[in-house]
């Protein structure tokens, strides 16, 4: 089957892509660029980096801007998926949803309306296991956003490794935060992955933070040989 992956540039959509590509054909990526920082569906820092990631994956990318207003943004997503169907003859959509029934339900409904298959290969996956699989599969992932106590700017731009997974799991036990960021506690950006033909090198960045909230904004990046 031919699939499009809803791709935010973070670890979950990348891992979902890798799992889908092991079983079916991934034909293109779809990225929603939301103007609304509070969007439950799409907002993520560094969404612009998906252009470079698509080039690294050698996959076409459908980008669609959305105001990010509740339910209106779903019409924009529907339009982007419809375009992927028209242009690349996709038969289904893959997402990186793990726990969010809110997101899964809405995407399932859109796919059903368009008579497309929909799969969530990370669905209900244990979060520590998900982080460990990210490492096992050789993804290079950095923290590009923190949004919960006791996380702060010291986490921003750091690569997820075994030590960091240990720290995140400890924070889950102490403060109840979700280690893989399911509750929006952290956002991530993938700089390298097994299907990347080249890796992403960050040339310039900016850190904006205020207490327990902050983003690592990539201002300039390029593809380099692996």
């Amino acid at each position, binding site marked *: 089957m031919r699939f499009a992956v809803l791709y935010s540039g973070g670890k979950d959509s990348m891992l979902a892509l890798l*799992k889908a590509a092991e*079983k079916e054909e991934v034909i293109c990526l779809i990225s929603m660029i939301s103007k609304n920082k509070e969007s439950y569906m799409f907002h993520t820092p560094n969404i612009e980096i998906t252009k470079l990631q698509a080039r690294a994956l050698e996959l076409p990318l459908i980008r669609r801007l959305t105001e990010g207003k509740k339910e209106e943004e779903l019409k924009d997503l529907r339009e982007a998926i419809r375009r992927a169907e028209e242009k690349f003859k996709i038969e289904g959509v893959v997402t990186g949803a793990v726990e969010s*029934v809110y997101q899964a339900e809405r995407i*399932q409904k859109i796919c*059903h309306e368009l008579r497309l298959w929909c799969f969530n290969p990370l*669905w*209900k996956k244990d979060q520590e296991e998900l982080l460990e699989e990210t490492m096992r599969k050789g993804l290079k992932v950095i923290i590009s956003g923190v949004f919960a106590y006791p996380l702060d700017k010291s986490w921003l731009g750091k690569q997820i490794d075994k030590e960091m997974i240990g720290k995140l799991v400890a924070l889950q036990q102490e403060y109840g935060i979700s280690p893989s960021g399911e509750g929006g506690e952290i956002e991530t950006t993938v700089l390298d992955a097994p299907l990347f033909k080249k890796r992403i090198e960050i040339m310039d960045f900016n850190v904006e933070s205020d207490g327990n909230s902050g983003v690592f904004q990539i201002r300039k990046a390029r593809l380099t040989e692996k």
Partner: protein
Amino acid sequence: MILIVDMNYRKDSVGYYEFVLPIASSIKDLEEYTIRHYSELSRTDIDRYSRIILSGNALEDKQVLTQIEDFAWVGTCEKPVLGICAGMQAIGLIFGSPLKRCLEIGMTVIKVVKRNPLFFSSFKAYELHSYSIQPSEELDVLAESEKCPQAVKHKKKEIYGVLFHPEVRNREIIRRFMDL
């Protein structure tokens, strides 16, 4: 040993992660399990297991419903069986209950209509299906949504079907099935 039956369109599909593994993770601390695709099961295989769970599958996946003869063993099975979503549809078809169009996606209120050991009062559950069943006289309806039957039980056997996905929300229902 529990048998989890993979009801996806083919063995080793992308649906395995979403519809089979969450069931395995619901029971992993309770008892050992084996996962097999429905197309590779024989009657002899079934007899080796203490209880059986049939998984769900994707909304567009109708493959299993065109191969219902592969589930003839359910008709004579004396072990406890729990069919989830497509699993309930398959159980329904085996016991003479035709499919009935009923689209439900997302969290839905489930109302219990008959006393049973799996759930006791109204609750919300995650749904992902376009068909329910029209239960035959061999099946009791245990629960309903506003639109259609949500859970059934064979009148004489420990064979249950739930249309919603207890592996997504309400995992205690799977654990109670394990205690039957």
